[in-house]
C-alpha cells in the first residue's frame, strides 16, 4: 500500500518537474529531448533495475558502477589488444560481469557475509582490477561505427538504447511482480531466517539477483562504451549512487520486503528529468544534488507518514 502512495507522490513530483522545466527550459518538451533523456539514463537505468530485486531482499550492491568499469575495460582490451571481433569482445565483457556478480553472490549467498561489506570490498576490487590492467592510462577507442550505433544511434527520435532498457524493464518487472521468484525475494527481505525455515531456496535466489546485477553491469558497460566511444577504468564513476537513489526514491524499502519496478522507473525518470531540465534552464548542476537530497527525505518521510496512518 505504501509503495503505491510513494509512487503517486513521485509521479506528482515528476509532473511538477516537467511543468517547471517546460516553462524555464529551452526545447525541453520536445521528442528529441525526451530521446536524449532516455539515452543519458539508459546505463543507470539498467543498474537501477537490477538493484531493485537486490534491495527487495534487504541487500545492496555498491559494486555495480565499478563492475561496469571492469566490463568496459575487458571489452576494450579483448577488442583492441587481443584483436577479437566485437561480438566476441562483448561476450568477454558479459562473462566478466557474470563472474563479478558470481563473486558477490558467493560471498553473500553462500558465506552469508553482509552485502554492504561484500560489495564495499568488490566496489574497490572491480575498479581496482580495471585500473591495474590499464595502468589507469590506457583508453580504448576508435570502435567501429556499427557498434557505436548502439549508444549513439537512433530510429527517428527513439534512441537505440531504448529497446534494451525496455526489455530489461519488462524482464525485471516479470521477475519481481509476476513470478514466484519475486515473492521469494520479498519473503527473504521480510525475514531471511523465516524464509529459510519455510524451506525457500534462499541461497539460490540470492545468487540469482547478484549474478543478474553483474549481467546488468556488463550490458550497461557496452552501452556506455558505445555512447562515449571510449573504454577506460574510470567508467561509471558514481553510477551506483544514482542507481540506489532511483530505487529508493521509487518506494522500494531499503529494509527489504517491499518494492516496485514501476517505482524504480519513476525514480529514474525523476532524477533524469531533473538533471536534464536544470541544464536546459541554465541552472547550476549542483542544484540537482540538493533537490535530489530533499526529494529523498521527502519521499521517505511521506511513505512513513502513510505507513503510520494505515
Amino acid at each position, binding site marked *: 500500500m505504501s509503495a503505491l502512495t510513494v509512487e503517486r507522490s513521485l509521479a506528482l513530483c515528476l*509532473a511538477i518537474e516537467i511543468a517547471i522545466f517546460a516553462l524555464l527550459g529551452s526545447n525541453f518538451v*520536445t521528442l528529441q529531448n525526451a530521446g536524449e533523456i532516455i539515452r543519458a539514463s539508459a546505463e543507470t537505468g539498467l543498474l537501477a533495475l537490477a538493484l531493485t530485486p537486490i534491495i527487495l531482499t534487504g541487500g545492496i550492491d555498491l559494486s555495480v558502477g565499478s563492475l561496469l568499469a571492469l566490463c568496459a575495460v575487458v571489452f576494450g582490451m579483448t577488442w583492441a589488444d587481443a584483436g577479437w571481433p566485437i561480438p566476441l569482445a562483448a561476450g568477454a565483457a558479459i562473462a566478466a560481469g557474470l563472474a563479478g556478480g558470481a563473486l558477490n553472490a558467493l560471498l553473500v549467498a553462500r558465506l552469508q557475509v553482509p552485502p554492504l561489506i561484500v560489495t564495499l570490498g568488490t566496489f574497490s576490487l572491480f575498479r581496482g582490477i580495471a585500473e591495474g590492467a590499464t*595502468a589507469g592510462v590506457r*583508453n580504448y577507442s576508435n570502435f567501429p561505427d556499427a557498434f557505436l550505433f548502439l549508444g549513439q544511434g537512433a530510429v527517428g527520435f527513439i534512441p537505440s538504447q531504448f529497446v534494451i532498457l525496455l526489455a530489461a524493464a519488462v524482464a525485471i518487472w516479470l521477475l519481481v511482480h509476476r513470478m514466484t521468484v519475486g515473492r521469494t525475494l520479498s519473503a527473504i527481505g521480510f525475514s531471511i531466517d523465516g524464509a529459510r525455515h519455510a524451506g525457500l531456496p534462499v541461497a539460490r535466489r540470492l545468487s540469482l539477483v547478484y549474478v543478474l546485477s553483474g549481467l546488468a553491469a556488463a550490458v550497461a558497460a557496452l552501452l556506455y562504451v558505445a555512447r*562515449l566511444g571510449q573504454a577506460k577504468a574510470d567508467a561509471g564513476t558514481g553510477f551506483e549512487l544514482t542507481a540506489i537513489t532511483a530505487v529508493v526514491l521509487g518506494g522500494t524499502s531499503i529494509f527489504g520486503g517491499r518494492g516496485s519496478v514501476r517505482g524504480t522507473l519513476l525514480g529514474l525518470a525523476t532524477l533524469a528529468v531533473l538533471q536534464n531540465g536544470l*541544464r536546459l534552464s541554465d541552472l547550476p548542476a549542483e542544484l540537482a544534488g540538493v533537490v535530489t537530497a530533499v526529494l529523498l527525505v521527502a519521499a521517505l518521510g511521506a511513505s512513513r507518514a502513510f505507513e503510520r496512518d494505515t
Partner: protein
Amino acid sequence: MTRAGLVALVLAVSAACGGGGTDNVLTVAMMPKNKGNPYFASCRVGAEAAAKELNVRLLWDGPTETDPAKQNEVVDAWITRGVDVIAVSVENKEALSTVLRKARTRGIKVITWDADAEPDARDYFVNQATPRGIAETLAGHTARLLDGRGEFGVITASLTAANQNEWLRQLRAVLAERYPDLTLVDVRPSDDDRRRAFEETQTMLKVHPGVRVIMAIASPAVPGAAEAVKQSGRTDVRVTGLGLPGDAKPYLKDGVLDSAVLWNTEDLGFLTMYTAHALATGALKPGVTSLSAGRLGTRQVDGDQVILGTPFTFTKDNVDQFKF
C-alpha cells in the same frame, strides 16, 4: 487515471507555452572539466569579464565531479537548448569528440580551451601551453634543481586523468631526449586531494631516500607535497610543479617550493570568450593569423590554435602580482 491525466495536461500546456528565450544576444556555453576546481573558478572570472565587455550571454556549466560521461550529457543538453558557441575544456578526448562533432553538424560553433578534443571535432583550440611545452618547462626546472643528474618523483592527479597522463607521456619523452641523467622513480596519485598528496609525498621520501625533487602536476598536489617536504625537515629536497599561484605562494616564500608553472587562468577564460565571439561573428575563420582580444591585445592564431602564450613560471619574486 488522474495521474496520467495530470501529466497529459501538463505536457499539453507546456507544449503550447514553449520555453526558453530567443533574442539577438550571442549565447556562449562554456564548460570546465569540473566545477569544483579553483583553477576553473579563476578561468570563469576572466570569461565573465569578457562576456560583459562583449555583451555576450555566458552559460557556465559542467560536471561537479570528473565524470567522463557527464561532459557529454551537458553538451547534448546545450545542443537541445540551442546555443551559438560551445567552448569546452575536454576531460576525455575520444568521448567528447563524438558529441562535439554532432554539435557542429547542427550549426553550433565549437571551440576547445585548456584541453583539446580531436581536431576535426572543433573549429579552434585556445591553447595556453602545449603538453610538450609544459613537460619541457617542468623538466627544465627539475634538471636545474638536480644539477642535471639525480632522482625525482611525481605526484599526479588521478591515475586516469587524461591531461596529466599526456603530460607524463611528454615528460618521459623529454627526459629520454634531453635529460638522460634524470631518473623518475615513481608516479603516485593524489586524486586531487591535498591530504593524499601530502601523505604520498611523505611515503615517497622514505621509500626513495635518494629523491631530491618532487614534481607535483596537479593543483592541490603542489601545496600538499610542499607541506610534506617542509614537515619532513628534508632541506635537501625541493618541490616544483603545476599549480595555482595563490596556493603556491606561502611555499614559494618559504623556499620549499622552487617554482610553480601555470599560465594566467583568468586570461585564458577571457581569451576563450573573445575567440568564441570572433568565431561566431565571422571575424575568426581559416586563414586569419591574429585575433584582437580586448585587454590582451593581439593574439597569435596558428592554424586552428589560438595561442595564449607559453607556460609561465611563478617564483617567490613574481607571485605577489597574481591574485588567483
